[in-house]
């Protein structure tokens, strides 16, 4: 295993490295890897028959984001009502599907978005003690695990030119004691770090004035546990999470939808297809490892597990060698339609949700992939699933689902 999980776990903070496999604390899960190697969710499930559907819960509005799993709770955000201004955070018992609490407030920033999306587009995040919900309207709220507000900031009011009426969707990132948000649009664009406990603004840096929907990602390197990667249509910037200090910058445009992925000393960016960089520990700069225009993530973000890198675009999975970008094979997902969510990998199975709620389970092999199941939820899925123990937690357009083996 050239990209050893052991090394990864040795450098990432405890909140992500926990052996507690029930936790899925942010967009794309532990270290934003989309990877839960110990988990074995059901291969087959079906909404109509209820097969391996533990529970499904109606939520008070729509979302384009995913759910997270925190301390036995499944947390999802929603928006509904007039102009989708009423925004919600709902906690559901992972075990029973019972709603534990629900909090709501009114969006103070711009709530407009494409009808396909929702004000509740970003996936929430957590440090295991607090929950951070962020919305397209740039409303940002921190709740404790009882659903009580700890702090709240209307970034849309504080920075009124920050907003994109097509909708924002960058998900917040918790890294150590800092909450990082990336707010990029044609108006006031910035990335900011806030203290998780107090909500105080620790830093704010200007970002390119272009629409961007990608999310900040953590980069855990040995000896440097607090780096954040910001990508946009014109740059790749690595900052210190606590200070916002720029550590490295590339004048290179990346995807404005797909987010980056950092594994050990490598950084994978959806740029010119896909480009991989290596952190040069001598120069503290990013050295290009390889670039492949045959390996382009579409709306999904790249996934690396073991020595394998996977990109998904237009219903075609491209599987390559993570070390040199050489293509191993491609697999077409039949009748896949549009795919916006980033798949998750459990063991060697890739779970790919389409916007119609179809889920392909694909066994990723060395030389070929096999579609081992095609499952239907029957409702639009835009957000990435969370993995908690051996279950998938899926936020569809109006519902929250737990997919787990029937007992």
């Amino acid at each position, binding site marked *: 295993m050239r990209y050893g999980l052991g090394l990864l776990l040795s450098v990432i903070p405890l909140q992500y490295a926990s052996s507690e496999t029930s936790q899925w604390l942010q967009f794309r899960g532990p270290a934003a890897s989309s990877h839960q190697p110990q988990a074995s969710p059901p291969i087959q499930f079906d909404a109509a028959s209820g097969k391996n559907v533990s529970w499904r819960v109606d939520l008070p509005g729509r979302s384009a984001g995913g759910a997270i799993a925190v301390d036995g709770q499944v947390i999802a955000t929603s928006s509904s009502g*007039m102009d989708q201004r009423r925004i919600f955070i709902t906690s559901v018992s992972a075990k029973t599907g019972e709603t534990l609490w629900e*909090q*709501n407030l*009114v969006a103070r920033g711009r709530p407009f978005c494409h009808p396909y999306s929702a004000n509740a587009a970003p996936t929430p995040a957590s440090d295991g003690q607090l929950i951070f919900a962020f919305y397209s309207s740039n409303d940002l709220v921190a709740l404790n695990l009882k659903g*009580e*507000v700890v*702090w*709240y900031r*209307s970034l849309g009011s504080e920075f009124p030119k920050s907003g994109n*009426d097509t909708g924002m969707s960058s998900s917040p990132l918790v890294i150590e004691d800092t909450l990082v948000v990336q707010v990029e649009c044609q108006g006031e664009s910035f990335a900011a770090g806030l203290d998780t406990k107090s909500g105080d603004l620790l830093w704010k840096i200007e970002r390119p004035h272009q629409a961007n929907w990608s999310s900040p990602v953590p980069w855990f390197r040995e000896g440097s546990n607090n780096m954040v990667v910001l990508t946009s249509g014109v740059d790749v910037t690595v900052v210190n999470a606590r200070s916002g200090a720029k550590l490295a910058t590339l004048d290179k445009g990346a995807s404005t939808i797909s987010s980056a992925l950092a594994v050990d000393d490598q950084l994978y960016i959806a740029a010119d297809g896909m480009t991989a960089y290596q952190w040069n520990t001598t120069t503290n700069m990013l050295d290009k490892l390889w670039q492949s225009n045959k390996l382009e993530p579409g709306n999904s973000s790249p996934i690396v597990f073991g020595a394998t890198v996977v990109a998904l675009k237009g219903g075609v999975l491209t599987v390559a060698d993570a070390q040199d970008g050489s293509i191993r094979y491609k697999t077409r997902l039949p009748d896949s339609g549009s795919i916006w969510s980033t798949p998750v990998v459990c063991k060697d199975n890739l779970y790919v949700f389409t916007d119609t709620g179809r889920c392909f389970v694909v066994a990723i092999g060395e030389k070929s992939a096999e579609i081992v199941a095609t499952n239907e939820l029957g409702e639009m899925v835009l957000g990435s699933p969370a993995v908690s123990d051996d279950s998938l937690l899926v936020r569809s357009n109006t519902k929250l689902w737990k997919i787990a083996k029937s007992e």
Partner: protein
Amino acid sequence: MIRVQNSKCTRLLLVAHIAAAISWTCSHARLVHANDFSQAIARLRTIAPSDDGNRQAVPAVASLQQASGADLIPVLAAMKDATPVGRNYLAMVANSLYRKSGAALNSQLDEFLQNTNNDGEARYMVLQWLTANDVTKRSSKLASMTEDPSLELRFAAIELALTRAENISDKAVKTTELTSLFNSARQPTQVIAIAKKLSDLGQPVDMIKHFGFVNRWNLIGPFDNIGEAHFDTVYPVESDLIANKSDLSAEYAGKNGPTRWIQHTTDNQEGVVNLAELYDKEKGAIVYAFQTFEFETAKDIELRLGTINANKVWWNGELVTSNEVYHASMEIDQYIAIAKAKPGTNRLVLKLCQNEQTQGWAQDWKFQIRICEADGTAVLPK
């Protein structure tokens, strides 16, 4: 015996002292609680959207979370006239307190909901609590709220009434019901949906009048905006317009040579003026739109602009909104500027900038603007 009596006396005194101490402690605690409670509420009501506001809010909200469910109504009442950030803090505290109080305060909450003087967002939250998982009860509560001053409640009530109206088989009755809902509706998407239903019934409505769209314009352009370089360039026509020296017969140097004012009336029901059509799909260009309005008395108004292009808006020479955003989206009420109309003639000027993006979706160059009250009711000056 005496010792016993003394002992009883001592014990009685002791008990009395303890009772007094407990009483004092309780009343003091209540006083402290009341002070903390009042101070926390007062603090949260005024929280501004800023780092300093956040630092003030965090201890106040932590203190308020200690309140009991019985304190729910004062927290809800405090949302009235609180700042937008403050209202959200108080709403979230109220939500937590409701979980503590359960149904104990439901009759008081029902009174709170019915009282239209209370904060609309607070009342909407109360509706959610009182009707959770009870569709019939929700329908019953909302039935009389299609004219509610809370736009959120009104929107929900009209949504529900529309569902009922769909089931009316008599065309005349259905048309009357939908017309009534159209007149009540303020949220643009809802208004347009009702208008379409009425149109389908052969009863078209005047959306321009309902919304208060400005549909008659004086336009001049194109002026140069190559490279998106002239958003802040003050062309002579702009300085003349702002200084109230506009002469609609004047000629100005434009991007492609001399240019003059044209009059244009749009019959688009959403008040959309299509500049791309009027100016031959010019790219890298700017057009100014100008109109005057007569008001009999001073009035607080809102100018609500929708455009997919970079824009500036002046009211009586004062810049009221400025948005250097190209091709993000276009919505009715996308940009809202608060202004004050004066008795007599008022002047509205728009600067609408097109860039040179080549994508198919970047060819739009259009705008719509309406004049209305804070609740979206059209203001129809002469």
